[in-house]
């Protein structure tokens, strides 16, 4: 039993041990031709790095983020110690992706509102924010931009490219766009393409944003307004799909927010209050134009499209080894979708391991430190030769 004093001391040491990181930006002036045909004359990618690139440059790991995260994967900022990276439980010294061994690169995708060039960035042609004029970008475009970042950092070949959800799509795409530049792809809570139901949810979210009177066709920056109502609803819809039915029931049940049913349209139930809170919080920091573009990138992703829907044919050019992880309670991107990926990899005789973690939390399980999941990643990364 520790004394309160000793616990406090430990707490201080923990705080001191927090890895201080710094967000950086890389500027690229060579135009980038996008999948949709538009050309970005120049762009910036926000990124962070953790650990040291070794002399052989063989220990680099690229982390790709999902819908609402950023390049801030791990550690904290000196001037903002409470701002802990979104995958800090996974990436850091002694963690499953051990930064004492690996040089980890977090990056923010194009079109984001967290630092990389996106709708809120100035359009060089006008000097004003791109807004609605920012082109629709794809997973392939993101990977192309990340490859430029890799070049800039002197990384010819990644030891691993990893991500969950939308991040997993980027990891998959890396093995297709740059087969020789990825040794291992870590593909978590993934799908090879969105289902009609997935697209339907995204469309409802987009309609919520676009029908907000403050949206103004995407030109809301000039008017000093934000389509907050649309963003809130979009986030509420998204959030429902990130949790399992069981997880929601476990967390909220039918617990009431007030002492009795109100017989009005206030938040009676805890779950309503929770969704409202999540929606409000999201609308404060997320950009509506970015949300539209990211959901489109999700909808469009389908590496098998050029191969008559044959995913195995699409993966014929992949050269990486793969670790695929799914969660049984994930109904957004179910285990069956991950097994499609595994089947395509087996058809191509790729080296692949597949974990189906019986976790109750739903899609969001990929962010939580289940010991089976983290143990597997620790073991897998431990076997990557440098």
């Amino acid at each position, binding site marked *: 039993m520790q004394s309160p004093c000793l616990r406090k001391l430990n707490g201080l040491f923990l705080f001191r041990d927090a890895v201080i990181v710094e967000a950086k930006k890389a500027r690229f002036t060579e135009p980038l031709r996008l999948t949709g045909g538009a050309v970005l004359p120049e762009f910036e990618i926000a990124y962070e790095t953790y650990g040291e690139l070794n002399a052989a440059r063989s220990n680099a790991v690229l982390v790709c983020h999902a819908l609402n995260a950023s390049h801030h994967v791990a550690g904290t900022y000196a001037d903002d110690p409470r701002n802990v990276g979104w995958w800090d439980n996974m990436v850091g010294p002694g963690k499953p992706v051990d930064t004492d061994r690996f040089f980890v690169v977090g990056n923010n995708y194009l079109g984001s509102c967290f630092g990389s060039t996106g709708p809120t960035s100035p359009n060089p042609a006008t000097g004003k924010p791109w807004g609605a004029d920012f082109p629709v970008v794809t997973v392939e475009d993101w990977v192309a931009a990340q490859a430029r970042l890799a070049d800039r950092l002197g990384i010819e070949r990644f030891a691993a490219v990893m991500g969950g959800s939308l991040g997993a799509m980027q990891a998959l795409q890396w093995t297709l766009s740059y087969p020789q530049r990825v040794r291992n792809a870590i593909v978590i809570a993934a799908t090879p393409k969105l289902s009609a139901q997935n697209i339907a949810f995204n469309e409802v979210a987009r309609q919520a944003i676009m029908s907000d009177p403050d949206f103004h066709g995407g030109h809301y920056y000039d008017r000093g307004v934000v389509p907050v109502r649309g963003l809130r609803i979009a986030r509420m819809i998204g959030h429902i799909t990130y949790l399992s039915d069981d997880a929601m029931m476990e967390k909220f049940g039918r617990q009431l927010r007030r002492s009795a049913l109100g017989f009005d349209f206030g938040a009676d139930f805890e779950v309503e209050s929770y969704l409202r809170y999540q929606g409000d919080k999201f609308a404060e920091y997320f950009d509506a134009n970015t949300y539209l573009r990211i959901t489109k990138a999700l909808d469009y992703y389908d590496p098998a499209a050029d191969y008559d829907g044959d995913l195995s044919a699409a993966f014929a050019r992949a050269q990486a080894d793969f670790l695929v992880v799914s969660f049984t309670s994930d109904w957004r991107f179910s285990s069956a979708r991950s*097994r499609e990926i*595994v089947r395509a990899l*087996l*058809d191509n005789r790729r*080296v*692949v391991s597949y974990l*189906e973690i019986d976790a109750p939390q739903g899609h969001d399980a990929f962010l939580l430190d289940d010991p089976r999941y983290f143990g597997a990643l620790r*073991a897998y990364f431990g076997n990557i030769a440098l």
Partner: protein
Amino acid sequence: MTEADTIARWVAPGARVLDLGCGDGRLLRQLWETRQAPGYGVEIDDAKVLACLRNDVNVLQMDLEDGLAAFADRSFDTVILSETLQAIHRQEPLLVEMLRVGREAIVSFPNFGYWRARIQIALAGHMPVSKELPYQWYDTPNVHHCTLVDFEALCAKVGFQVLERVVLTDGKPVAAFPNLLGALAVYRVSA
């Protein structure tokens, strides 16, 4: 001679191997090290899946009861089912699947016809508990036991050819009265 050595002898160098119910991946590791045979294991148990990853063996966490839909026809040289047959609910469809995805199959199982098992039932009047069958009847992963005679009858029914058979007791091959004196049976079969 161990079961693993028997299996390794039957796996051609460089053969593509699928090990169903692969445990901690030890056999796959041995086949890679001694026969340079690349392979995949299928395992459902979390702890064993993790052990496979630690052993640097390809492992796929799947339920064998769901079949082998993840694997294409004739995509393996050898499909192994090592001491797992007795824990499968629907054995016949799995055996058929094994020879759909593989050219050959290797199947091993504890022989329920082994004299020690027979004596425990016939004389002591209780379900056998032994080195090969270490479980109490009410607390066992095993659901369908069989003897050499039973397995060979099933092979005949589904049209499998028995190419080779090794019967072991305490690591030693058994030649005479194998269904009585053999504790463990290892078969190599093809369609």
